[in-house]
């Protein structure tokens, strides 16, 4: 009896996605599971356990970041996939797309300082009871790079309150010691929010790029914890 079945990952590719190969590399090399690129015209995701919506500039960020990608045929399938409890992981532009598609609350607007920011930041694990963080401890600090101009998470007061009450805030920008401070907030995000999940916890969106932090050569392998958690969750879900 095999305790560990083969898991199938998909990385969705929109015109303008550019972190799709990074995500593919991490799944195939570090997670060690089969992974496919899924062109945005596809409408069937039934073969997959988890899909990653990668970073980049889908549709050139025309209109608003992520706004046009949500009309791609694959997004209807992604909604059904998420509703069935399967895992949907949006990174950077993927997070923006999930918000625009209504799969996650809130919106990502222009960075408070207006600049495109590309650097390593530290984020604090706020909730370790999610499929993406179960291998982490609450308060764990991860070093993961960001690379965005529209990462400033915003939402109204009622939404913020419900995010807090339901422990949907998964990561916050913090300093190296894990203190959540104004100085450690790179983009003006409300309450230093770097990543949130949906109520059912199977959909996660985050601005930092864990797929770029999976090998020491790149400056950090903290991102592996997130992929390791996801792998454990898929294994648990299928038992």
């Amino acid at each position: 009896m095999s305790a560990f079945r083969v898991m199938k990952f998909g990385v969705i590719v929109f015109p303008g996605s550019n972190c799709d190969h990074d995500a593919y590399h991490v799944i195939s090399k570090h997670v060690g599971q089969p992974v496919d690129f899924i062109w945005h015209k596809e409408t069937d995701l039934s073969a997959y356990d988890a899909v990653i919506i990668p970073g980049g500039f889908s549709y050139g960020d025309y209109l608003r970041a992520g706004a046009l990608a949500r009309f791609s045929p694959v997004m209807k399938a992604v909604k059904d996939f998420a509703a069935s409890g399967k895992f949907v992981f949006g990174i950077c532009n993927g997070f923006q797309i999930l918000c625009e598609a209504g799969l996650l609350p809130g919106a990502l607007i222009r960075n408070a300082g207006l600049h495109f920011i590309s650097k390593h930041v530290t984020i604090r694990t706020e909730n370790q009871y999610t499929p993406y963080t179960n291998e982490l401890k609450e308060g764990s600090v991860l070093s993961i790079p960001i690379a965005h101009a529209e990462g400033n998470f915003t939402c109204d007061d009622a939404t913020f309150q419900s995010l807090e009450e339901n422990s949907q805030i998964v990561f916050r920008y913090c300093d190296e010691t894990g203190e959540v401070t104004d100085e450690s907030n790179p983009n003006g995000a409300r309450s230093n929010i770097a990543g949130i999940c949906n109520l059912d916890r199977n959909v996660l969106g985050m601005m930092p790029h864990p797929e770029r932090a999976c090998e020491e050569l790149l400056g950090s392998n903290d991102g592996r914890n997130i992929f390791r958690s996801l792998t454990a969750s898929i294994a648990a879900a299928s038992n």
Partner: protein
Amino acid sequence: MKAKVFVTLKPSVLDPQGKAIHHSAEQLGFQQITDVRQGKYFELALDASVSETEAQAAAEKIAADVLANPVIEDYRVEIVQ
């Protein structure tokens, strides 16, 4: 017929681009500007067979579903002949 759609950030949403434009306008010597908010303007050209009521309804739907993100933005539609 044309539908004009104006999309503006909700008053509660921070507008860093508007702030930067405000500073630039001040550099031009206009010190009396108290605030600048940046928005978007769209013109939808419509077939002559569409009635004004239909045009209004269509533009409102397009504005709500595509042109504006209701989480952060408001919109206003004007129909012109």
